[in-house]
């Protein structure tokens, strides 16, 4: 019997004034009852409009149908046909602009909570499934994967399941990419990511951490070592700065540095050896997911005041709505239509303030968003002692610079065919943020999947 409530089942969450002091997960997940109740809101539309909104075309009505029947394991099995990281995507996908934006229930109320249901089924499986994944006998072909982010992990998993011997090379000391060094614990518990990586290892995937491709080993040497194809999923980890005066003062971080110190090096735990500036008042410059994460981490590290400083208006912010709302609830202050022009330092070169100007929205620019223009004479000084620059990242040129024949576009992104990931060099494939620039987990995963299929065809066709 369909549930005709116009509203989604609320997601149980930690209270804002509690969670803004801890690093535990904010959203607690549906109970079985809530999940079944929410699943009953799905009409099981024959033409499946929602599926068209999912970059990897998960059969949404089918998996939700299984939740209705309380066959949670079957729901999971449907999810994992298209997605190798459903517990991750259910948590971090920008559902409101993807699957849920196409849901017919969204016309007269709120759409079905597809993401929450996906998370529920994936978590249920993790908690209850026992059997170890079956190892596939080797077909004798070796493939190398560069980077252990969602793109690389997905590509490696799919190839291993098809019988290839896969080795992932990861520059950092821990696998997971942005999932471990960027997205904070309170949004994506690291145990979930670790679990996915452990599963891959059980399948037989080798994960070699502490190997920087382009430095420790080059792409050419990988071929010499007997790898027949290579997938590059090295992400877009190079931080941008604004190039305004004062950016090298003490207390100015790139979001990457701040989040890496906090998440990967666990600066928030008692026994971490990694220092972090415990600032009183923090300004985070930018309006994306990265900025929201940095702001919410800063709050949790004990800052009295955290500001998001964004040059356009609230409506243009690229972050997921849920993250913006969560940040607001937790007490992050939003200074929109505001742009920094200079960071001010004290006599010891520590940050003591940030000069900003107010903006207004003018004519639309190339991106279709209204261009922010400075309001003359509106400058003022914001009282802050730390600034976190979160204005975007681009792909690291390290691999491109050391690999002959691997071409990039003017933004530094590796050029690759859209549906196969084939680069300008034979047997070298690429996908994820390294190709698109900073994007999403699900797109990176989808690219890894497509490349795995293409690599399989390439090797079998040789």
């Amino acid at each position, binding site marked *: 019997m369909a549930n005709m409530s116009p509203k989604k089942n609320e997601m149980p969450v930690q209270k804002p004034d509690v969670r803004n002091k801890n690093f535990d997960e904010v959203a607690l997940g549906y109970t079985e009852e809530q999940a079944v109740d929410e699943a009953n809101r799905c009409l099981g539309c024959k033409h499946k409009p929602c599926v068209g909104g999912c970059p990897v075309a998960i059969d949404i009505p089918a998996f939700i149908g299984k939740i209705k029947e309380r066959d949670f394991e079957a729901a999971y099995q449907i999810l994992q046909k298209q997605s190798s990281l459903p517990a991750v995507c259910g948590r971090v996908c920008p559902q409101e602009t993807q699957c849920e934006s196409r849901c017919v229930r969204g016309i007269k109320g709120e759409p079905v909570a597809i993401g929450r249901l996906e998370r529920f089924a994936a978590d249920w499986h993790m908690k209850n499934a026992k059997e170890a994944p079956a190892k596939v006998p080797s077909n004798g072909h070796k493939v190398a994967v560069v980077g252990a982010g969602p793109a690389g992990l997905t590509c490696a998993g799919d190839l291993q399941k098809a019988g290839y011997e896969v080795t992932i090379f990861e*520059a*950092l*000391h821990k696998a997971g990419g942005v999932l471990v060094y960027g997205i904070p614990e309170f949004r994506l518990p690291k145990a979930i990511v670790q679990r996915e990586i452990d599963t891959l290892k059980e399948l037989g995937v080798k994960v070699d*951490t*502490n*190997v*920087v491709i382009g*430095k*420790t*080993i080059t792409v050419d040497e990988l071929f010499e070592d007997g790898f027949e194809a290579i997938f590059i999923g090295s992400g877009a*980890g*190079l*931080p941008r*700065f604004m*190039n305004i005066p004062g*950016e*090298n003062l*003490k*207390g100015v*971080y*790139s979001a*990457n*540095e701040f989040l*890496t*110190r906090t998440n990967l*090096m*666990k600066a928030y735990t008692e*026994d*971490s*050896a*990694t*220092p972090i*500036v415990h600032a009183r008042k923090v300004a985070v410059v930018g309006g994306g997911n990265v900025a929201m994460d940095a702001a919410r981490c800063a709050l949790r590290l004990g800052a009295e005041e955290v500001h998001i400083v964004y040059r356009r208006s609230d409506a243009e912010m690229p972050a997921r709505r849920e993250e913006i709302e969560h940040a607001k609830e937790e007490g992050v202050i939003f200074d929109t239509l505001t742009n920094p022009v200079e960071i001010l330092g004290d006599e*010891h*070169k520590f940050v003591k303030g940030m000069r900003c100007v107010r903006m207004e929205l003018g004519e639309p620019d190339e991106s279709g968003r209204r261009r922010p223009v400075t309001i003359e004479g509106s400058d003022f000084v914001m009282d802050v002692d730390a600034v976190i620059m979160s204005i975007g990242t681009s792909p*690291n*040129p*390290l691999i491109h610079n050391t690999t002959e024949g691997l071409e990039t576009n003017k933004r530094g992104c590796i050029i690759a065919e859209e549906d196969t990931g084939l680069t300008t060099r034979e047997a070298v494939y690429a996908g994820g943020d390294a190709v698109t620039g900073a994007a999403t987990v699900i797109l990176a995963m989808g690219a890894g999947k497509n490349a795995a299929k293409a690599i399989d065809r390439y090797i079998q066709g040789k």
Partner: protein
Amino acid sequence: MFEILKKQELNPTVTLMEIAAPLVARKAEPGQFIILRVDEAGERIPLTIADFDREKGTITIIFQIVGATTEKLNHLKAGDHLQDFVGPLGTPSHVEGLKKVAVIGGGVGCAIAYPVAKKLHQLGCEVHTIVGFRNRELVILEDSFRAVSDKFVMMTDDGSYGEKGLVTNALQALIESGETYDEVIAIGPLIMMKFVCKLTEKYGIKTMVSMNPIMIDGTGMCGGCRLTVGGKTKFACVDGPDFDGHEVDFDEAMERASMYKDFERHQYEETCNLFQKEVH
């Protein structure tokens, strides 16, 4: 895990270790560095590749005990393992084509200067080495340097060994005596490099320095290692660590190096206490 094959105390605060790291050894070049973590809860710290042996698959590091991580590292012995060891990182020193070079090392900076001097010597370049230490007790690598130098000058601040004075005094003396250099390579404390650069600027001698700002990833991801060089922001871990010393903003680099002073002192004291407790 990476095994420590050999440990040798060079002086009371400087230790040499040889680590089994075949992949790193295969590619290492003078001027490059590695990043290590001692254990699972440890910090990532960069150390220069002081020497390497491609055949044996080993990397030599020489470190000064200055804080918590280097203290912890120094408590390990041959046969123990390091959690993480990644490299070679950074751009190798440009040594090709140089005919006559003055290599200047200050304190533990000598560990970074030595592989460069050795490589220059192997390439047939005339190498004049000036090394400086606070006092006789702290001298390291003297024999190694002598073996690759056509001229060798030892300086100590207090005159307890070699000549009394700073490395800049020795360099100036050499230049004034008529020596000419294609390049000066200066590696040591920021303040030393700054003053060497001031001196060589006067004589118009190109000077390369090796910068060692605080680093995390060492691959260009965090931007924590940024410096101003020639008015532009550079990442020491990928664009360097070697830079044209006449373009480096040393004052800014010195300020940035002190960012975590209080935290570091606290960690160091905690670590020392920890080890004292273990002993008792």
